[in-house]
């Protein structure tokens, strides 16, 4: 899983019918030390994350294992909101 920060929302009226009701968020990847990276991605939120939350994003076919995403066409899902991150000093 990768770490990211929620930086925005996506609204799409016309979309795959299995995505109706899904909350789509724009996530910017961050490194574990908190620094923003250049990559952005769209992920389906399954844990009610909010703007600026640090989140855990699961990618690839594993994203379909998240709650409520069975058989949906997704390759990125937010499955956790990070409270705390402890890391060895570099």
């Amino acid at each position, binding site marked *: *899983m*990768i*770490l990211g920060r929620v930086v925005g929302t996506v609204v799409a009226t016309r979309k795959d019918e299995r995505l109706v009701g899904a909350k789509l968020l724009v996530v910017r990847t961050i*490194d*574990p030390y908190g620094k923003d990276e250049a990559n952005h991605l769209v992920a389906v939120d*399954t*844990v*009610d*994350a909010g703007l600026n939350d640090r989140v*855990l994003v*699961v*990618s*690839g*076919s*594993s*994203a379909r*294992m*998240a*709650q409520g*995403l069975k058989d949906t066409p997704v390759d990125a*899902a937010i*499955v*956790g*909101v*990070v*409270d*705390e*991150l*402890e*890391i*060895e000093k570099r």
Partner: protein
Amino acid sequence: MMLARVIGTVVASRKDAALGGSALLLVQPLATDGTPSGKPIVAVDAIGSGVGEQVFYVKGREAALPFLPAEVPTDAAIVGIVDHWNVG
């Protein structure tokens, strides 16, 4: 599977129910000479490893398999603690 070192822990109280109970660890992938290789990622611990240990982890859809029959939404899982390795 990839060699890595566990470099930290992640605490998330709001998360997918199937992730409950498993430790979330930050792992730094390693090259065969033991130096860091690429960016750290978050992996679910399937064997009880800890910070500072050298491990190997499995990526992709198969990362959910250690936790069957639970369907854990993860794309990385630690499946072994490395005692030592040799590259000829």
